[in-house]
């Protein structure tokens, strides 16, 4: 009896020990895992969206802001397989073809989830919901919207996703100011019941989101709209392959507008070739042609090697340098021509004389002083600068042709900046866009960068007078709005291809500023390969003057007589 009792006692003890060990296992050994699992079941962690900052125009109008769009998906098992449903839904899609194709594919699919269309607006979502078609579903899809359309695409850039799946700005202001525009997302950890309702007396933890900063830019949306409209008209009128217009305040360096066509829609950037993403005004090199003569002439006058009264003794015919012959662009030669007449007639031979007077070293120094061969410092992400050759690699023929803008590569913004220095009495401005950064409770004003004096005010004034004379008496005088003082210069640059110039393609341009005695804006218009006329004086110049007329009216600048 005692023995059996002992066995029973032992059995109970073992049983108790087993239970105790098992309890120890769950309570101690697995306690962290179980707590975590329990916590996951009754707590939820929600990321609180921080919201990307807006990009505003000079009048605080949103050029880019956040929008809540929706992804439309269907559950093919529930979605009706009839054409009547497709017809019902068709009016709600912008790109009907793509969405309709997806719907047809979904009807023949056995999947549980099929994406149909991205970026549906709230009204589109509401309209589709009201159809009460089974199997339709929506997922929020935060995005960026562009109230002024795609005209500022090259200034703004776009927002895509990086390799970690996070939003990131690419190109333009979105790329340059990505850190400022991106906010810091918050987090809400909250206990909830079986119906996913928050438990009021439960524990919760909230990390408030920090919204991104908004940028106030110098972009004037009226200027931007005006130049985009004129550029589109010019491309159509002159059958050009593309074109650009950039407008800058030459005193402060503030960019007022910048347009380039063909462009892309930043809201649907994925539908366009990546080749179109880069802003050609700040990243594409071109040979400026005769517009560059203003820079070389200003340099020579500043160096004191020529004056407006100097005459050219070598301008009666072609010039031969190192075996290469330089001829006049239009076949005309002007013996003993004066410096203003060299600009008026856009005389290549006269510019060779000027460059010879200036000398290679001085000329290259001045070219660098005008900002060529280096970044302008504009606050746009993809800016690049064609490099200038080292001084010892410039042969005589190179600096002779560079004097009239051939054999030297620049960006359009570098060219506009250089002419702005002439408008600004010799002070080189730094182009920029952002004037204020606005956070939740502070406004940070960004002062205009101080311009650097690169040539004397008298040299700048002398070249300005030559440019005014060129506009008033040159071929472009027929297009000039009467009563206004405008300083400008045409350019028709050939395009280098594989060691020679393309005989059939040119970039026509006109650069200038107005009113010349108190400049309000400097502007560069370029047209790629216009037809039938390829001359800047008959294509880019009329476009420039057309835009200028509208800007005079917009800025309230009256004619002087």
């Amino acid at each position, binding site marked *: 009896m005692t023995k059996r009792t002992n066995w029973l006692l032992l059995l109970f003890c073992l049983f108790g020990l087993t239970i105790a060990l098992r309890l120890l296992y769950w309570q101690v050994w697995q306690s962290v895992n179980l707590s975590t699992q329990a916590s996951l079941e009754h707590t939820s962690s929600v990321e609180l969206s921080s919201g990307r900052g807006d990009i505003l125009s000079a009048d605080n*109008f*949103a050029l880019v*802001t*956040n*929008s*809540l769009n929706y992804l439309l998906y269907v559950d093919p098992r529930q979605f009706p397989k009839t054409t009547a449903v497709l017809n019902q839904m068709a009016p709600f899609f912008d790109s009907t073809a793509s969405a309709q194709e997806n719907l047809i594919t979904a009807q023949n699919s056995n999947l549980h989830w099929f994406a149909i269309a991205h970026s549906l607006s*709230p009204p589109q979502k509401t309209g589709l919901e009201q159809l009460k078609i089974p199997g339709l579903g929506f997922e929020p899809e935060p995005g960026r*919207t562009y*109230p*002024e*359309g795609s*005209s500022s695409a090259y200034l703004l850039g776009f927002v895509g996703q990086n390799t970690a799946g996070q939003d990131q700005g690419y190109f333009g202001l979105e790329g340059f100011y990505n850190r400022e525009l991106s906010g810091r997302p918050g987090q809400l950890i909250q206990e*909830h*019941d079986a119906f*996913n*309702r*928050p*438990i*009021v*007396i439960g524990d919760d933890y909230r990390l408030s989101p920090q919204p991104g900063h908004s940028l106030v830019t110098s972009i004037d*949306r*009226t200027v931007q*709209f005006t130049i985009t*409209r004129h550029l589109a008209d010019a491309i159509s009128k002159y059958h050009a392959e593309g074109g650009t217009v950039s407008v800058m305040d030459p005193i402060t360096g503030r960019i007022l507008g910048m347009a380039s066509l063909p462009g892309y829609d930043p809201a649907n950037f994925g539908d366009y070739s990546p080749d179109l993403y880069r802003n050609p005004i700040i990243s594409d090199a071109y040979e400026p042609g005769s517009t560059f003569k203003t820079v070389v002439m200003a340099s020579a006058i500043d160096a004191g090697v020529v004056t407006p009264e100097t005459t050219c003794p070598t301008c009666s015919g072609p010039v031969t340098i190192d075996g290469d012959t330089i001829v006049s662009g239009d076949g005309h030669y002007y013996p003993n021509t004066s410096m203003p007449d060299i600009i008026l007639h856009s005389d290549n031979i006269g510019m060779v004389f000027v460059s010879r007077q200036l000398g290679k070293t001085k000329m290259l120094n001045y070219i660098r002083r005008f900002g060529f061969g280096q970044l302008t410092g504009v606050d746009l992400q993809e800016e690049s600068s064609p490099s200038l050759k080292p001084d010892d690699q410039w042969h005589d023929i190179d600096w002779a042709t560079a004097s009239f803008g051939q054999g030297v590569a620049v960006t359009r913004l570098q060219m506009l900046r250089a002419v702005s220095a002439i408008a600004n009495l010799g002070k080189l401005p730094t182009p920029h866009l952002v004037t204020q950064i606005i956070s939740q409770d502070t406004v940070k004003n960004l002062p205009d960068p101080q311009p650097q004096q690169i040539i004397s005010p008298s040299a700048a004034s002398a070249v300005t007078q030559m440019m005014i004379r060129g506009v008033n008496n040159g071929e472009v005088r027929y297009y000039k*709005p*009467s*009563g*206004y003082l405008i300083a400008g210069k045409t350019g028709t640059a050939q395009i280098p291809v594989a060691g020679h110039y393309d005989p059939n393609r040119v970039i026509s341009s006109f650069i200038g500023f107005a009113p010349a005695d108190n400049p309000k804006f400097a502007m560069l218009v370029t047209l790629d390969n216009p037809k039938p006329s390829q001359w800047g004086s008959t294509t880019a110049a009329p476009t420039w003057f057309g835009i200028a*007329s*509208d800007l*005079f*009216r917009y800025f309230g600048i009256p*004619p002087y*007589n």
Partner: protein
Amino acid sequence: MFPSHMKKIKLTLIVLTIDALLLVGQFALTTSRATDGDRLAKLNQLQAELNDQNQNLRLEVYNLSSLPSISAKASAANFAPANTVAWTPPPVALAP
């Protein structure tokens, strides 16, 4: 013996009553809190909806006051772009 037994019964009844009261109290409290949670969830949802509406209205205002939209409406209403004409008076008075 008898009074002691009565005391036990009384004590049991008191404990049972307290238990019942606490149970009812807990039930009332949890119901109240659950209702608060439900209200809070509904208010959160309403707040999200209002935020969406606010955002959509803001975008509608932007779209309606954007220059391309105004320009399109002006063209549809047969307005033409303004054209500035500068009149230059003759330099000397002309005799009739």
